[in-house]
């Protein structure tokens, strides 16, 4: 009896299962096909080309990062709708998390996939994807006049070896933010400062030390004095070396020898290591967690992006000012910069439509809408000037626009940024945890050299 029941149960479930499988498989296939008029494979895409000839709606597909309603997914929806209204072209957008986007692009592109047309590319990967053949050159789509509308640093970061691969969506910069509530409690006031007379890193460290002494004298409350939002990531940490006059990478983009095993880098890393050893900067938190410490009111000073105040989770008041410089290097103030770029999939069947959409989003009405909602620093010169000249523009945006135009140091432009950031992120983290600075830098030079050996002809 028991056996019979078992067998019939298995049989029924197997049948039900196969129905679910085939039924759902086909229905969702229909759904996808209907929604995007062919997003799977080259044949389908070329059929949508055919549709275009017949005057039907064109669909282009954009893969990007920033999931969720408060992320790009929600923020860009009105822009995509506006674009469809204006041109009749439907943009189907797929959003991934920041780290997943790299895997997705790599897999799809390496598989020679034509199922997307536009991709968002982190500034650091523009040259990599360009040299790997994933990105279509954009020079034929953008006139010199159009290119001149972006500030030069932003435009150049989308160019590798004389070819333009990416169009800047916006840029980013770093400012010094502080927890006013905590500093008031400690009786500390921030000295007067401006773009020409910046606070120095040494000064900020001293203020942080005094503050910690007041609010957490025995160091048991878990307060952090002064830290960096994207700790142990080259995006932000390199600005310390830059502020000492150090460069990011050799001019050919393939070497660190003579670049990071130099005095500016040794001084910057030693200064940072001492900051950690003195208990002012933290250990043990990664870049995903450190910003949250400031947001929760457990940190006095942080060098962070313009989104920092908006991310506060506690009620403490936040103040901000220009990024610090180093004593004796007052004329070398440096800030990190760069953000996201748009590129065209070299396998796309809809390149013209893709380019048109990119223009809309980086120069046209879409760009206006985007800068409004995103609140980051524009790459467009006219918009930067608008902020500088508008007396009502918020001060932190004015600072940001100033830094982007004057102190921004582009990130290492190299087709081997993956290797570069792996080696240097690790170097910053090791120094933070007490590794010998010079030895770490020398190792990094050597590691990077063998990592890029494969690319040198």
């Amino acid at each position, binding site marked *: 009896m028991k056996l019979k029941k*078992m067998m019939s149960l298995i049989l029924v479930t197997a049948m039900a299962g196969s129905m679910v499988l085939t039924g759902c498989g086909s229905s969702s296939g229909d759904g996808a096909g209907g929604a995007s008029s062919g997003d799977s494979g080259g044949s389908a895409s070329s059929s949508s080309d055919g549709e275009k000839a017949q005057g039907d709606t064109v669909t282009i597909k954009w893969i990007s990062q920033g999931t969720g309603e408060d992320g790009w997914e929600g923020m860009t929806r009105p822009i995509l709708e506006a674009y469809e209204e204006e041109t009749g072209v439907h943009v189907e957008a797929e959003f991934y998390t920041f780290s997943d986007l790299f895997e997705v692009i790599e897999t799809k592109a390496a598989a020679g996939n034509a199922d997307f047309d536009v991709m968002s590319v982190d500034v650091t990967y523009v040259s990599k994807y360009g040299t790997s053949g994933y990105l279509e050159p954009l020079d034929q789509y953008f006139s010199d006049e159009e290119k001149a509308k972006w500030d030069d640093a932003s435009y150049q970061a989308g160019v590798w070896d004389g070819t333009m691969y990416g169009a800047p969506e916006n840029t980013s910069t770093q400012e010094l933010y502080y927890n006013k509530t905590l500093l008031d409690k400690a009786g500390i006031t921030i000295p007067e400062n401006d773009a020409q007379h910046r606070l120095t890193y040494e000064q900020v460290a001293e203020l942080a030390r005094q503050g910690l002494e007041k609010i957490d004298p025995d160091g048991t409350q878990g307060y952090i004095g002064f830290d960096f939002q994207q700790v142990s990531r080259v995006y932000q940490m390199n600005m310390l070396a830059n502020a000492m006059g150090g460069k990011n990478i050799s001019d050919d983009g393939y070497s660190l020898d003579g670049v990071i095993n130099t005095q500016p880098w040794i001084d910057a890393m030693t200064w940072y290591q001492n900051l950690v050893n003195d208990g002012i900067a933290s250990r043990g938190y990664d870049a995903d967690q450190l910003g949250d410490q400031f947001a*929760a009111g457990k940190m006095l000073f942080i060098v962070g992006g313009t989104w920092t105040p908006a991310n506060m989770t506690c009620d403490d008041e936040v103040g901000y000012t220009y990024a610090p410089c180093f004593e004796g290097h007052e004329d070398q103030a440096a800030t990190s910069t760069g953000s996201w770029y748009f590129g065209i999939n070299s396998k796309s069947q809809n390149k013209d439509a893709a380019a048109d959409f990119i223009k809309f989003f980086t120069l046209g009405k879409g760009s206006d809408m985007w800068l409004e909602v995103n609140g980051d620093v524009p790459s467009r010169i006219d918009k930067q000037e608008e902020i500088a000249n508008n007396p009502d523009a918020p001060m932190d945006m004015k600072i940001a626009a100033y830094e982007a135009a004057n102190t921004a140091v582009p990130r290492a432009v190299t087709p081997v940024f993956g290797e570069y950031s792996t080696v240097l992120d690790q170097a910053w983290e090791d120094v933070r945890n007490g590794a010998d600075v010079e030895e770490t830098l020398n190792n990094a030079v050597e590691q990077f050299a063998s990592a890029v050996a494969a690319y040198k002809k």
Partner: protein
Amino acid sequence: MTLRQKASVKKAAIYVVLIFMTVASIFPILFCLSASLRTQDDLFRNMFPFSIKSLIPVAPTIQNYIIIFTDYAFWRPIMNTLIVTIATIIFGCLLNSMAGFAFTCFDFKGKKVLYSLVLISFMVPFEAIAIPLYSVANSLHMVDTYAGMIIPAIADGLVTFLFIQFFKDIPPSLVEAARVDGAKWPVIFAKVIMPISIPVFVTAGLMIFMNQWNSYMWPLLVARSKEIRTIQIAISQFSGERSIQWTYIYASSMISAIIPICLFLPFQKYFVEGITAGSVKG
């Protein structure tokens, strides 16, 4: 010490060890549970330095759970994952056990080669084959379908290997007896092998379940539309470039942990019965 005293000391010692292991097993889970009942501010304010407040929320709230179900429609990925998981278990158990049965019971040409293929198939990580596998799925038009998540996961070398190893323990006399009685092979498989192998089937089912339930990278690549998105992808959506909704992540992780527990509790008794215990009885 009398024999009875000895026995009770031994029992007490067993309980001490069991309780120690219990603490080690659930302490991190309690951490996760407690974090899921906080606001993000509360979480970071009280996590360090460790105190009683790190374990017990200052002002417990179930807001995180409400939000993930209302604003983020978390039930949808749960249903999707259940569909994918259950379909994979049914086909996976059936096909892999058939293959396992053939490898254990029969002698045939090319057995060694096929056997090594099965073994090799699970010795390479998914991440290593993602790119060519994606090409395959793409050319079979499996991208963005349930089938794309289910079919590649059905045949699993490790599951086949599990069946082989456990079928080896079935006493040959049982099979011989059935053959002497003139039973056909499908009947032997269904009526002799399967019933006494329920614990193996449950184990294999659990294995497949956990693989699919926690699988991340493949669904990320082949199941993009919201309609068929799976649970781990849904959880990952809470981490943005600039800020991470930790409390939502903990709440959704608790949900994603509770479902397998509830589903597998009823099957526990099969472990207790054991494999050959059934054969002796039946």
